């Protein structure tokens, strides 16, 4: 079991043939373009203070599509190229801090970038009727750009920069467009997250002080068997560093018990921001979790893995059961995210529980080792698929709650009833999202969960058994949602509900189509995940 970054270093070393011409230009500039185009869009809007609302909306949407466009371009280049191409924008390290500018697309980042590219236009379409659309779109594009930067950055300096930059647009989106106690939720969100990040920054400052580099690949060498960073830092030091990074990420994902900002923030945020927060921002945390903890600090991770398994199980079980008690549909969907992301944390924790046995002391015989490595592969692939698929289904569910709220002004579980009769198309699309979220086979949610259960079972069967409680809980609260809102006689606010408008269909139907596509043909997602080293 070599770590993710060792593989990267090897592939980088073997890729000697440098492509030339237009392809070279594109492979060098696409990663930077991912980050730059939404910023350009934001700048363009900044420079047009008198722009009409409609034009502001349209131009925001157009620029938000840049990510999907670049994903398509990346796919075309990767598919048509004979040799393995690397999409990387980088400069030599310079300056007093020895920072290099390095944005590189890997398979895992490509998947997350694609998710961002799908969700952002959808979220903007969901927020079509917000007041002050120019400012809203400026903030949203900045947030999109920052998130993309997090998924692409290859050293901690820029990674952290983008990480923090994503926070401020989110703060204003919640505060200025949110519900009546949005201000409190926004401050809570920002202070909580910055508080966590401070620990992470300290941890990385300590690493930098020891190793003198920010670069992930070099850090992997220093912290791996090649370097002597562990000796310099000492056992207590590495534990503290691990904890520091962990707290920063745990707040963002969030991992139990650092999750209490989430229901407030998700519930108070405007619907588009809720979609982006759960679909993309939570993934930033998980992405960091994999990059830093599972790949850079596998020793520490292996030591902490059993604790993390329990925290992940708390996410899964508590999330599902807390969701069951919510009477506010947005809070219910928010808690369901706590549950769904718990599976990813569980997978990442489990792949390191047996790390020592499978890497250093290979006492285990061949067949058992095969079983263990297959478990690891299943769990980590499953976690990436789950991250992508949760993005689709959770965003779609928020969208659906937004549809209800925008028409009736309320979003309580008991406020509706019989909606399926007055809005059959809405009911059908919402039903797809719901069954995708509860992991129905044939829709996208199932594949990731199945692979995670497969992987977790290979290592910790009891953890897989406990985690199934979450599957049951999810079914219970989502079907309660469905039954109370869509079935039965008409409720107090059902009269206000009309079926989806053309704009809403255009936003929701493609997502539902993707749910079916990736449910029936999950290999597509796996191929994207494995397309780039």
């Amino acid at each position, binding site marked *: 079991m070599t770590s993710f970054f060792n593989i990267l270093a090897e592939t980088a070393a073997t890729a000697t043939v440098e492509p030339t011409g237009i392809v070279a230009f594109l492979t060098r500039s696409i990663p930077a373009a991912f980050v730059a185009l939404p910023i350009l869009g934001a700048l363009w809007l900044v420079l047009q203070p008198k722009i009409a609302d409609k034009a502001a909306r349209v131009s925001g949407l157009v620029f938000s599509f840049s990510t999907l466009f670049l994903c398509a371009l990346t796919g075309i280049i990767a598919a048509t190229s004979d040799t393995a191409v690397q999409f990387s924008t980088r400069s030599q390290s310079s300056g007093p801090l020895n920072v290099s500018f390095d944005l590189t697309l890997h398979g895992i980042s490509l998947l997350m970038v694609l998710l961002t590219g799908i969700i952002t236009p959808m979220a903007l379409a969901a927020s079509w009727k917000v007041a002050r659309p120019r400012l809203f779109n400026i903030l949203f594009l900045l947030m999109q750009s920052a998130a993309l930067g997090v998924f692409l950055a290859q050293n901690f300096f820029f990674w952290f920069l983008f990480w923090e930059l994503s926070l401020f647009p989110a703060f204003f989106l919640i505060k200025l467009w949110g519900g009546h106690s949005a*201000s409190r939720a926004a401050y809570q969100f920002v202070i909580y997250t910055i508080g966590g990040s401070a620990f992470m920054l300290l941890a990385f400052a300590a690493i930098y002080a020891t190793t003198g580099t920010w670069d992930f690949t070099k850090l992997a060498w220093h912290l791996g068997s090649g370097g002597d960073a562990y000796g310099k830092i000492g056992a207590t030091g590495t534990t503290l560093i691990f904890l520091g990074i962990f707290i920063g990420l745990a707040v963002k994902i969030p991992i139990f018990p650092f999750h209490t900002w989430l229901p407030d923030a998700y519930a108070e945020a405007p619907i588009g921001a809720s979609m982006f927060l759960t679909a993309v921002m939570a993934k930033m945390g998980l992405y960091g979790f994999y990059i830093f903890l599972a790949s850079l600090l596998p020793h520490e991770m292996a030591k902490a893995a059993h604790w993390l398994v329990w925290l992940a199980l708390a996410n899964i079980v508590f999330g599902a059961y807390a969701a069951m008690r919510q009477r506010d549909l947005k809070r219910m969907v928010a808690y369901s995210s706590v549950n769904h992301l718990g599976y990813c944390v569980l997978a990442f924790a489990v792949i390191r529980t047996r790390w020592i046995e499978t890497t250093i002391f290979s006492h285990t015989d061949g067949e058992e080792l095969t079983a263990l490595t297959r478990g690891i592969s299943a769990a980590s692939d499953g976690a990436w698929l789950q991250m992508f698929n949760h993005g689709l289904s959770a965003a779609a569910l928020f969208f659906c709650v937004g549809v209800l709220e925008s028409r009736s002004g309320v979003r309580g579980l008991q406020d509706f009833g019989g909606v399926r009769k007055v809005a059959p198309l809405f009911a059908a699309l919402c039903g797809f999202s719901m069954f995708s979220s509860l992991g129905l086979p044939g829709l996208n949610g199932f594949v990731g969960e199945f692979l995670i259960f497969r992987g977790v079972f290979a290592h910790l069967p009891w953890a897989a058994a406990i985690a*199934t409680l979450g599957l049951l809980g999810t079914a219970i609260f989502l079907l309660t949602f469905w039954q109370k809102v869509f079935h039965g006689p008409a409720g107090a606010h059902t009269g206000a509900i009309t079926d989806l408008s053309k704009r809403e269909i255009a936003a929701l139907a493609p997502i539902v189509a993707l749910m079916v596509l990736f449910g029936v043909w999950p290999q597509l997602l796996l191929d994207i995940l494995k397309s780039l080293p």
Partner: protein
Amino acid sequence: MSLVQFLWLIPALPLLAAAIGAIVPHRSRKIASGAALAAMAGAFVLSVFALREALAAPGTHSTFNFAWLNTGEFKLHLGFLLDPLSAFMLVMVTFVSFLIFLFSTAYMREDENYEKFFCYLSLFASAMLGIVVSNSLLLTFISWELVGLASYLLIGFWFHKPEAAAAAKKAFITTRIGDIGFLLGLVWVHHATQTQLFYNGGAGFLEIAAIGKLSVLLPCGLFVSSAIGLLLFAGAVGKSGQFPLHVWLPDAMEGPTPVSALIHAATMVAAGVFLMARIYPMLALEGILPPGTIFPGSEIIQNPNGTTSITLITNALPKNEILTDGPISIFLPHHVSGVLPFTALSVVAFIGAITALIGAVVAVAQNDIKRVLAFSTVSQLGYMMLAIGVGAPGAAMFHLLTHAFFKALLFLGAGSVIHAAHHEQDMRQMGGLGPRMKITFATFAIGMMALSGVPFLFSGFWSKEAILHGAHGWHVSHLPFYIALVAVVLTAFYMTRLMANVFFGGARSHAAEHAHENTWTITLPLVLLAACAVLVGFLGTPAWPWLQAQLQGDTTTPFAFGKIFEGVGLLGLSVFLVAVGIGAGWAVYGVRKRGTATAPDPLEKRFPTVWRALEHRLYFDEFYAATVFKLNAALAVFADVFDSCVVDGVVRFVCKLSEFLGFINKDVDEHGLNAGFNATAEKLRGAGGAYSASQTGDARSYLRALALGFVVVTIVVLAVVLADGTLSRWLPF
């Protein structure tokens, strides 16, 4: 060219019909039902060809597998399987489904969501056929869950009725409890054998290659195969309405009657039995530990009650030793001692027997015609599980097939009655329908006799007989056999009660008086199913057990009339018991017919307490409401309260603390330090008080700061890039 490569067409055709049903507008709704009927007819024709091919090569499992997911480390395959087991099931499912679809065109004609109904029906049929043709436990699970979805949609078809919506949810959640076991079993199979294909040219998990991996003893004394079998059985318990998860099935009668016939009689509930029959080779693995085998350092004792005790002293063995005894290796990873607690098959047998009894007892006291049939289904499925458990999967499949025909007949007959009686389902409001609906009456009577096990002519008799034989020959215990005998009497009794109440005597309501026979689309399926309810039985009589032989891959089935008399004692006993049941039923309900709709049941007058308990289905729902639901709700409350009070409380405390620190800061600044620091103090106060909701902040200044920040970042990025001189290298020109 083998047909197995085209087996996917059989589930694909109804899936296509479902897609058509989903998109056609209401005004061209006939297209939806036409597509559904055509698809099912096509699937039936294909199934018949498949059966012909399967019978031409008995004992072989032809498969067609393909990788669905390739992670690089391993592949997950899906596949299709053609053997007699799947082929018989295919023919039955497609035939019964076609007739039920035909019936539905008349039954649902008035419904405003007519085309959606056929969409869901087709989706259901497609998923069900997916289970049947599957050669992969994963594909079975996928189809299994889709069957659950389709059943959810169909039970809740009249979703404006709160009872229907609640019943649909109850069915989905209850079966999902079992499905969790299925999922874990599936994952375990794949972990233990690295495959989840049933058959794959010797490499499937039901074949020789997997035996060594599945016959590992767990610390609890069970084989891995048995533990997996029990987990998969949990799924079957949910789907097939077995005790203790049977509670959803009677409520599911809220769905339209054709749905009850299709899903809750002939097909979906049979899926659990089919799965058990499919994985029977794995379940039977636990029988490989032959009584009396001596391992080094171990003792195996044959107990008087038929169970086997194993005492394995593994300390005497080198760790991880693989012992070889004959062709089977038994892997002893841990210290194992004590008595083998139970075998998976005995669990299946006892659950089946208990279910058969509970269903039959409760059916006696139901007044809703569909609920009587629902509990009768629960009971009959219990028989099938019992047969699997006692090692007679052939008998289980035989009963599954005969039951599918006669129970679909009974449900459709009930549907015909309900349709004629203006959607009245209460038997107390019926009466005297026999002369008014002659075809329905005659066919229903055939179904009733098949279900009760009236001897010789009716299919149910032969299949039930096969199960009783199997139970009688079970070496572990005779208790299930006796339970099954009691259920035989009860079945005959409650069916006689139903007949007497519905078809005999005088009409007890306005609706019953004006009932008349339905159109041919309703009666034709009844007649065809009635014919099957008689004829299918002759495929598996003791004289010529052709069906069971084909299922076991046995090619030669000589006709031997004398075999009927081999078990003549048992045969006589069951004939006698049926006679007792029908006789008692007629004595109580037939001789003095119910006079008015409101009169109490004769048994109710006699045994009021028992009757009330049975009427309330032995209080299972109440019991679950008081225990499982309460526990679940308590866990939810705990999660919620823990979240908002404990975790959030800690967070709030930390916030208050920092606010307090901010306040101190401010105080110290303002009073302790000189005025030059005042600006700093203001900032600190802002930071400290930032959390409080009163501090709304000036959005504009924040925004300005934010814009500034972005500009700075952009400049930094550009500076880093430009300083390096690499930008020029990007330009290819």
